[in-house]
């Protein structure tokens, strides 16, 4: 969920040019990037979809390609 919230906040910060909104996106992305390896460590049928969705959403937000 944090990966999705980060994407949304990033888009809003782009629309509004608000540094505070950009900071919110950093907070959510930080939480998502910490939670993802933890979820991968507990990989199961139940969390597989969420892990894949979070991975794709975070890859869309990567800026260092």
């Amino acid at each position, binding site marked *: 969920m944090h990966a*999705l*919230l980060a994407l949304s906040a990033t888009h*809003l910060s782009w629309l509004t040019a608000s540094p*505070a*909104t950009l*900071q*919110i996106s950093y907070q959510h992305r930080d939480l998502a990037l*910490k939670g993802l390896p933890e979820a991968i460590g507990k990989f199961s049928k*139940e*969390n597989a979809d969420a892990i894949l969705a979070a991975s794709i959403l975070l890859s869309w937000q990567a800026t260092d390609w």
Partner: protein
Amino acid sequence: MRVFHSGRIPYTTPNPPFFCAPLSQRGILIFNHSGNCTKHNVRCDYMDQPEAEESQQILANSDLRMTPQIERDIQLWRETGVYPFPSLGVTAQPTLTQYSNTDLRLIHHISSIADQMQNAEAQQRSVWVRRVPLYVQFPFMNQARGNSNSLEGSSNLQQTMALLCMHFSLCQQHTSAG
């Protein structure tokens, strides 16, 4: 937790621990004393995480483009539990009490874009239009374990991955040709 590292990239014992976001996305988790990116030698944005008080200030100063109509939508969503974008077909319901109004505003924002694009793109040819509603749904579905829709979602995700692979492949071909 396992720590992956490349032989080319230095890392040190964590104090405090943190992950380099771009590198961790590639499966390389870096622990570093200074907090700066050891590969690019720049300050890491993720080291600037605010304290609780500062976090409240950020929320107060943030511009979330909240309108009275959106506030009403979110309030109604909280009261009834009915997702405000029925056309996206998000059936699994989240536990709304665990989300702040800011979180719900962010979900509302990304959902509204998907909704607008779905309405604008009648033929639904783009990956975004077909798949973003799924991304909204997956975290909720993860909460509602045992939901039979998760199997359907899984096959949709596989299709999404196939489409993304095609997209990247086309981009690479385009780059090579250019």
